[in-house]
């Protein structure tokens, strides 16, 4: 019964979205305040509808209602409760429901916290947001109904891929969708700006918090997915340039460009048209990502939908939304004028260069991901574009991005003094080369690519720190003043430093693990020791036991360095009888400089076991860097000028929504 109520609630959400996509828009165009206000209510009702539908489906999973097709196909009564719940979105139908839940959530947030946004812009934005929703509600209801029943329910479900029965990957989709789908707000604001014809610094200030929120979620989601691959797939890899990974990485890259160009709009009233185009393209890539993953056009580790009718449906939606927005752009964008003027050497130019490079890397990932598909459609030739291609094309441009990120903050707005910038860049370069030389000599490192990577990471880190210190008054100001200034810095400045610092840290980690990791694969018996880099791994014991829905062998590994015990690792080999599938659970100990990582493989039948041991330097820095980058977005979000109720914002709210009496 609750399942049918859920189905009904979803239809209700569709109806609310239909109203929300038409009435407020008409209101904004004709100046009817009453019609515009409908947008807020409709957004709230729409959210309640989807939330109800989502709750109903979740309940069906929790109570293992196998008369629901989705539950029967993807769940099992023996699964732990946590994975019954996360199983809701670990399949096509449920994940699309999560998609629209996020979409409606962002609509709800705009209706609740968007009080500072002028009524006409808010109403139009909500209308566009709902137009996106309508398409995806229809998609779910017509092709991917999660509430479909089966006439003769099975006694038990088919279970869920055990690789996905893990907390890291369970939280990955909600965060990823927060980003993917959250970028719909940028799209809605951009289209609304084109409709209402109003684009100015205030517009960028209203749009930017939503982009920041989405971007932070996407950052966390990507990092979490990468972390999961690292500890769960069991060979120490963390990024594979898999098309599904690329599908989430492209919106991140171009979304990063959008975040930065929106700053130029906000502060300098320049790059207006470009920022609107970026906002449209960012959501376009989110939709393309959804299409690639959900249509099953790629067959890769994570894609599990295989019905082409769904792909065609999403493709049509994609064409309507993106094609429509681009047509509107072509029609209306010429009316938008930039007024900000700036010199060649200026912060604006630096951010423009950031955009050039970020858009280029997005393009590179796009072409690399879609080229095999396009070629196969064109002449049937099957080729593969794998990690080596991306390493050769993506990494050099990304290195340039890091250099620009380092130097950008040195440039002042409008006009910078070239001599000052070059002098400071020279200092930073000198320090980072010296630092790298010290590291190379101290640890006896040689590989030129790795050392170049260290120089670039250090360059970004030192430049970021130097910018912080200079703004705090170093050198010159007394220590007390410096500390007071550091504490009093605006949150957006902290966002910059933490974000760029996090990028430097993550990059250093990637370089370190790519170049200097140590790996040994061997068959060992109990008691046998193996040297891995400076460490020694020994297999002590193996114990067979039983988990909630799997059997497992747990190995005890002793890791020593120069004869002293460092840690014990307990890698597992699990067997999930319902799914008839094995998984590996790596044993990992994180030290500040790297991970000790052990994997238990198959027994050889003669008392030995295949084991893989790794020392992965830098890996913890990658995760810390990812966390810092996520944090940087959230910290910027709390900046005074973006906060609801900031003095300037309060005035505009009063202007924006006049009471009926005052309007008269």
């Amino acid at each position, binding site marked *: 019964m609750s399942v049918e109520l859920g189905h009904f609630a979803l239809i209700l959400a569709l109806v609310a979205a239909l109203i929300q996509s038409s009435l407020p828009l008409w209101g904004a165009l004709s100046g009817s305040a009453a019609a515009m206000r409908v947008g807020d209510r409709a957004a709230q009702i729409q959210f309640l509808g989807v939330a109800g539908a989502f709750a109903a489906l979740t309940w069906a999973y929790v109570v293992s209602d196998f008369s629901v*097709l989705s539950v*029967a*196909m993807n769940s099992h009564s023996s699964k732990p409760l946590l994975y019954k719940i996360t199983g809701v979105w670990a399949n096509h139908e449920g994940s699309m429901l999560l998609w629209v839940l996020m979409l409606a959530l962002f609509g709800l947030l705009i209706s609740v916290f968007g009080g500072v946004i002028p009524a006409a812009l808010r109403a139009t934005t909500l209308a566009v947001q709902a137009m996106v929703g309508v398409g995806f509600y229809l998609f779910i209801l017509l092709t991917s109904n999660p509430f*479909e029943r089966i*006439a003769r329910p099975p006694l038990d479900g*088919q279970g869920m891929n055990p690789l996905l029965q893990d907390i890291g990957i369970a939280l990955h989709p909600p965060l990823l969708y927060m980003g993917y789908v959250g970028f719909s707000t940028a799209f809605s604001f951009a289209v609304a700006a084109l409709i209402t014809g109003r684009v100015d610094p205030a517009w960028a200030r209203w749009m930017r918090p939503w982009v920041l929120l989405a971007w932070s979620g996407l950052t966390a989601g990507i990092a979490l997915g990468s972390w999961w691959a690292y500890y769960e797939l069991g060979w120490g*890899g963390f990024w*594979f340039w*898999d098309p599904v990974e690329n599908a989430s990485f492209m919106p991140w890259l171009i979304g990063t460009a959008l975040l930065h160009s929106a700053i130029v709009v906000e502060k300098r009233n*320049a*790059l207006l048209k470009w920022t609107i185009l970026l906002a449209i393209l960012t959501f376009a890539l989110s939709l393309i990502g959804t299409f690639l993953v959900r249509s099953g056009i*790629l*067959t*890769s*580790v994570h*894609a599990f939908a*295989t019905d082409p009718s769904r792909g065609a449906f999403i493709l049509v939606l994609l064409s309507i939304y993106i094609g429509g927005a681009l047509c509107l752009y072509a029609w209306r964008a010429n009316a938008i004028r*930039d007024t900000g*003027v*700036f*010199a*060649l*050497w200026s912060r604006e*130019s630096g951010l*423009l260069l950031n*955009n*050039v*490079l970020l*858009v*280029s890397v997005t*393009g*590179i990932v796009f*072409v*690399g991901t879609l*080229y095999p598909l396009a070629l196969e459609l064109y*002449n049937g030739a*099957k*080729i*593969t*574009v*794998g*990690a*080596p*291609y991306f390493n*050769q*094309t993506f990494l050099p441009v990304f290195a340039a991005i890091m250099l620009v990120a380092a130097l950008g903050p040195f440039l*002042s707005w*409008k006009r910078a*003094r070239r*001599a000052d910038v070059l002098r400071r860049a020279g200092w930073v370069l000198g320090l980072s080369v010296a630092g790298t030389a010290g590291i190379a000599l101290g640890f006896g490192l040689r590989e030129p690519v790795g050392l170049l990577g260290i120089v670039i990471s250090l360059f970004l880190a030192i430049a970021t720190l130097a910018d912080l210190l200079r703004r705090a008054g170093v050198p010159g100001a007394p220590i007390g003043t410096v500390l007071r200034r550091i504490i009093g810095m605006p949150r957006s400045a902290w966002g910059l430093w933490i974000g760029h610092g996090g990028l430097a840290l993550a990059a250093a980690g990637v370089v370190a693990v790519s170049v200097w990791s140590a790996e040994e*694969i*061997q*068959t060992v018996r109990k008691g046998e020791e193996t040297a891995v880099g400076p460490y020694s791994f020994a297999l002590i014991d193996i114990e067979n036991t039983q988990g909630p829905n799997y059997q497992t062998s747990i190995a005890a590994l002793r890791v020593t360095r120069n004869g002293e015990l460092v840690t014990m690792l307990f890698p597992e080999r699990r067997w999930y009888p319902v*799914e*008839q*599938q094995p998984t590996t659970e790596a044993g990992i100990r994180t030290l500040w400089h790297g991970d000790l990582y052990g994997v238990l*493989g*198959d027994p050889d039948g003669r008392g030995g076991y*295949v084991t*893989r041991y790794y020392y992965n330097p830098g890996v913890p820095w990658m995760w810390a860097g990812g966390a810092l980058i996520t944090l940087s977005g959230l910290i910027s979000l709390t900046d005074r000028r973006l906060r609801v109720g900031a003095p300037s914002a309060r005035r505009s709210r009063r202007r924006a929504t006049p009471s009926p009496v005052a309007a008269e």
Partner: protein
Amino acid sequence: MKRAVMKPILISAVLLAMTGAPAHALDPNEMFDDPVLEQRARDLGRELRCVKCRNQSIFDSNAGIAQDMRVVVRERIAAGDSDEEVLEWLRERYGDYVLLNPRATGQTALLWLAPLGFLVLSGLGAGVYLYRHAGGGDAPDPALSDEDRARAQALLSGREKTP
């Protein structure tokens, strides 16, 4: 109706059965004793795609076919082939599909030119924008005269009204 429901169930049952096949991760038995040859074999393994897998290299994959391909790579290395010859040997048998690093040929020309194309195009766009919007050269020296400084101090301490 019933058939439409049963079909995906059957497909997923087949898929589940397939994934239940025993794992063949890189096995010490396959490996060279010579660390130099072994390193070459691993590096080559990262350049080759497991033909039945979903975007995995044969080095990373646990599939049986990946193990077979790793063995072939090692046989070719043992036979004295250069890295290029090993890749070419596999390409002749499995097609371009196995190469994770696609060859630069007529049909991959766009793929390999695209990165440069994006940089040039977006760079040109930015250049045009700068040409149209950029004004002014280097910033003037911000050094203040003593008089300026005194006036600024007065303004800051509130002794003088803003002009």
